């Protein structure tokens, strides 16, 4: 037997088992309806879970993008200071982040597709629940045992099949969410450990070296200005482009000289 038929048979056998409860088809109709409502609730919770998971990935991606932008800036600063070693380090870290971002994007797309499918699924289920509610009341009102065998069974197995399908979709979504949560958790740990350079840690070594690279010429410039003032000559500090706000207190150049 082909896969298609085997899959169909098992799927339908499993679906019908969930609703095979009562002797009286009218009771089964009510029971099926209750179960369908429960399923709809579960489905909505599952959609919310997927959305939460997706948002978490979006936040992580934003954080990584900030880190990447910061490293790009640092690489530029390093190049302007002729510190190729620092530039290389910044770009290497940025590369690692880019890889993580690509992974996250793929996960995000998957979750988004899953979410869209589940929203569609719950809309389909909602439409069926509404139709089923009306139909079961009509069937109960006009109930005859002979008719019940076919019409009621058809409605019940139809709704059972829908529930089986929705159940399968939810299980898939739950599995995916669980996988993503595990990966998100691992990524959070990686970021927290600094292995990926969390941009919020502004005191990292790379930045410290770059700051020193900028501070030293500024200090030299200040020194030159002070010397100029003392010897009564004209100041050349502005030509050296020293940023005024970084100017060290008067004792700093002296300290710098002692080193």
């Amino acid at each position, binding site marked *: 037997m082909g*896969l298609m038929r085997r899959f169909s048979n098992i799927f339908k056998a499993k679906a019908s088992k969930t609703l095979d409860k009562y002797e009286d088809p009218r009771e089964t109709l009510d029971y099926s309806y209750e179960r369908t409502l429960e399923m709809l609730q579960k489905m909505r919770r599952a959609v919310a879970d997927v959305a939460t998971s997706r948002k978490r990935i979006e936040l992580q991606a934003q954080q990584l993008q900030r880190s990447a932008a910061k490293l790009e800036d640092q690489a530029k600063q390093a190049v302007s200071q002729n510190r190729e070693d620092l530039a290389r380090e910044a770009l290497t870290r940025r590369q690692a982040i880019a890889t993580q971002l690509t992974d996250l994007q793929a996960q995000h797309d998957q979750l988004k597709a899953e979410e869209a499918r589940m929203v569609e699924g719950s809309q389909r289920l909602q439409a069926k629940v509404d139709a089923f509610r009306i139909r079961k009341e009509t069937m109960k009102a006009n109930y005859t045992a002979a008719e019940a065998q076919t019409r009621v069974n058809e409605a019940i197995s139809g709704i059972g099949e829908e529930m089986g399908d929705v159940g399968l*979709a939810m299980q898939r979504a739950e599995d995916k969410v669980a996988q993503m949560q595990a990966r998100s958790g691992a990524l959070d740990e990686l970021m927290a450990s600094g292995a990926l350079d969390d941009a919020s840690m502004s005191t990292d070594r790379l930045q410290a070296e770059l700051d020193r690279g900028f501070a030293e010429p500024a200090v030299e410039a200040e020194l030159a200005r002070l010397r100029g003032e003392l010897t009564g000559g004209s100041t050349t500090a502005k030509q050296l482009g020293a940023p005024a706000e970084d100017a060290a207190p008067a004792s700093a150049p002296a300290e710098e000289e002692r080193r």
Partner: protein
Amino acid sequence: MIVRISGEGQFDLPEDHVDELNRLDDDLTKAVDAGDEARFTTALEALLASVRTAGQELPADWIGPSDLVLPSPDATIHEVREVLGDEGLIPG
């Protein structure tokens, strides 16, 4: 003939389309038996495309059982095997 695509909905197909489905199902079965994921995806896509093209999608509020239920478009061999469960791949 009513065919359900898992996660997608139900389609009404002309009875004479079943030969075409059986032919496409052969490819799918071989792919699963071989455990060939790429071939499985291609075969499944072909089977589902054939259902969508030849069939008419039934409205969401239509209630009734299907003659055939097919896996969802992004199903993997692993997932299909899970549904098949104890039945295994080679029916005893």
